[in-house]
């Protein structure tokens, strides 16, 4: 186990380095930061001077090594656009994204499992079939359109929920939270649904098919034969056994929730790191982009790593392949 852990850890580091390299090499193709930093009356001299000040005139490998060295010490540089340390900006914005991701994750899991169980138990029922078909609508439209339609219906036409932003936030230590105010909670609803809809559908379908699978197993038949009530059979036995794959998939999906937050945050002007990243692209704010990508990578790799270890512990024969083998 230890040897395997070390080996995987080593691989994870290599993965991160490659990610960093790829991410870093893309910046030169995104655009030129200089024009966004200087006004329309800047001269060629100003441009050259700024370029060398930022180290952009140095060869690419030098820039990369420098970036890595600083990143290891937790120094992600200073945002070109805001003129503030990137680490500070990200720390400021992360709570918004994490709270949004947590709420939409929760939404996806609870509603997803409930609907999954329902559609599995009433497999042939009309309601279950309608839910199954409807759930596909959510994944058959692009996220941004769903978000805008929700704003149109619930903010503009009905006037129930705010159209953008996080509402009033409260500072608890270094963390700003929207959970403690009414406007903060209201502001969470539409973005959370927009972001969680896809995952909800995924979980619902996964639970349903796992449930159907389990319900066919012999021990469930025996349980029924023993005269246990449907409720106990469904929830104590069947559901429990479907949860392992659900947890795994949910874990992996956590990362993509945060990545997909880019779109939701843009539509709802949600002040998280996804919006920060989009802004950074717009203004070619290389330090912010680099830090964001590295952060996301660390998170994905960490999740992958943990999932791998779990699988190794459960079934050394299969290791990581079963993660998505069940359903996609």
């Amino acid at each position: 186990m230890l040897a395997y852990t070390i080996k995987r850890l080593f691989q994870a580091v290599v993965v991160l380095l490659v990610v960093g390299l790829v991410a870093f090499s893309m910046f030169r193709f995104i655009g030129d930061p200089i024009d966004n930093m200087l006004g329309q009356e800047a001269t060629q001299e100003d441009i050259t001077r700024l370029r060398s000040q930022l180290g952009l005139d140095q060869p690419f490998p030098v820039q990369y090594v420098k970036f890595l060295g600083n990143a290891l010490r937790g120094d992600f540089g200073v945002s070109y656009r805001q003129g503030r340390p990137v680490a500070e900006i990200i720390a400021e914005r992360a709570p918004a994204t994490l709270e949004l991701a947590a709420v939409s994750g929760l939404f996806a899991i609870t509603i997803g499992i409930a609907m999954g169980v329902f559609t599995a138990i009433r497999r042939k029922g009309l309601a279950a079939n309608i839910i199954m078909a409807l759930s596909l609508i959510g994944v058959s439209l692009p996220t941004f359109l769903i978000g805008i339609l929700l704003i149109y219906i619930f903010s503009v036409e009905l006037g129930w929920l705010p159209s953008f932003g996080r509402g009033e936030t409260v500072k608890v230590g270094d963390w700003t939270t929207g959970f403690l105010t009414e406007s903060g909670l209201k502001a969470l609803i539409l973005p959370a649904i927009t972001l969680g809809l896809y995952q909800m559908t995924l979980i619902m379908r996964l639970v349903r098919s796992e449930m159907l699978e389990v319900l066919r197993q012999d021990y469930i038949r025996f349980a029924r034969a023993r005269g246990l009530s449907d409720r106990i059979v469904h929830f104590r036995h069947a559901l429990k056994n479907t949860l392992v794959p659900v947890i795994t998939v949910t874990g992996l999906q956590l990362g993509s929730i945060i990545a997909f937050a880019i779109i939701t945050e843009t539509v709802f002007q949600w002040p998280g790191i996804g919006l920060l990243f989009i802004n950074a692209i717009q203004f070619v704010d290389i330090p912010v982009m680099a830090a964001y990508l590295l952060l996301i990578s660390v998170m994905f790799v960490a999740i992958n790593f943990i999932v791998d270890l779990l699988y190794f512990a459960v079934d050394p024969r299969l290791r990581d392949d079963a993660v998505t083998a069940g359903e996609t």
Partner: protein
Amino acid sequence: MKRLILGSLLFALAGTAAQAETFRWASVTDPQTMDPHAVSSAPVLGFLNNVYEGLVRRDKDMRIEPSLAVSWEPIGNGEGWRFKLREGVKFHDGADFTAEDVKFSYERASSEESDVSSWFAPVSEVIVVDDYTVDIMTKQPNPIFPDSIANWMIMDSGWAAGNGTERPDKENGNFATLNANGTGAFMLSERQPGLKTVLVPFDGWWGEAEHNVTRAEFTPIQNPATAVAALLSGDVDMINPVPIQDAERLKARDDLKVLQGIEARVIMLGFGHEADALKYTGDAGKPNPFKDPRVREAVAKAINVDAILATIMRGNAEPASQLVSPAMRGYSTANTDRPSYDVEGAKALLAEAGYSDGFSFGLKCPNDRYLNDEAVCQAVVGMLAQIGLTAELDAMPVRNYWPELRADNYDMYLLGWSPGTFDAEHPIRFLVTTPNTEKKLGSWNFGGYSNARVDELLPMIQSEIDDAKRQAMLDEVAGILQDETVYVPLYVQPLVWGTGGNVELTQRPDNFFILRWVNVN
């Protein structure tokens, strides 16, 4: 824990109570810094005009009026300008405003680290005569100098020294990036970059308040549809800009108002004048037809500006005949005609130039810089197709656009120009004069247009004190540009703001939002 929730509930209640008097507005871009000398961009300068003040300022009609200076007059035969300063003015932190602050702000704004140093290129020296008199000496007579410094904002020298921000630092930032201490009608009370910036009225302001705002909150909203939704649902009191297509619908509603005006920015088509060959499409490598003024004129005639304005701009913009709008100083009333839309005439001109079969070329266009820029370019492609010219459109975000133009990667391009000085001299200096890095001339003349007479006229315009003579020279340049179709001016970009029905405010052509003219009823 219980206490925390209770506390935050109270906080939330207090928050809603305060919100009733709060004016909330939204725009696409967040001002990236609170430092008035670090970045020369409209969002920054416009926002900071509410917090900082200059020696002079612009009134509702863009005329220069006294601000921190009460009067000014030329010195001698145009060696410089003498400014009499307003007495009894306080900065937000309580410090007194004196001539030393003016000298300091000159040093700060004209330093190498500053982004606005080009405003001070004509200046040779700033002399403190006494506490309330300052002489600003110029290298040559400079009749428009007071006009050119309305956005030069004065910072307190003591505050800057005390907080280590004697020079702007846009790369690493410093105290002035997040904090502000001006003399303006509003004080910065909260700054969360990219999220929210809050201003409150400054009690010690020298002027008389025309507004009734007790608190103003600015939020950037990027997605235009979201901004409109925010205005419609009452989440904000004002948005700038309103997407042009939505203006009519918003106007029709009782609870909303739409303010329209024309901006200082003229949208135009530019050509490669210097390039010997076409660079794009199947005709790449063939001689550059745009060197021929007849071809350029044909392009001008082929474009139905009225149709663009009627559909894409929804009747919200005015056609342009020259590089500045009629609202600018030095606009040439002698050259107000633009080439009429005339497909046959355009074809005839092409035939005359030897291109009766047309040709194909590459058109560059930004897609996130000007209002509906990409749609306008698409329309241009369609109209040029009617006279046999096949334009291949390459539209890109502005972050890729300027480097591309600077590298001469275009055959034709779209450009918008807003003269920072509100004077017709500005575009001549940047867009028309033969490029010269040393003299800092023609830095946006990407096509490399060169005309000896224009080059000769520019310094004369810059130093001519007599308005009539100056105008005659500006008229001559405007005439040359039209005769040779150096650019094809299309239209003056409209300003469209949307507000709640209970909001009164004034829209200025420079698209600056001035909070001290806002009243919420």
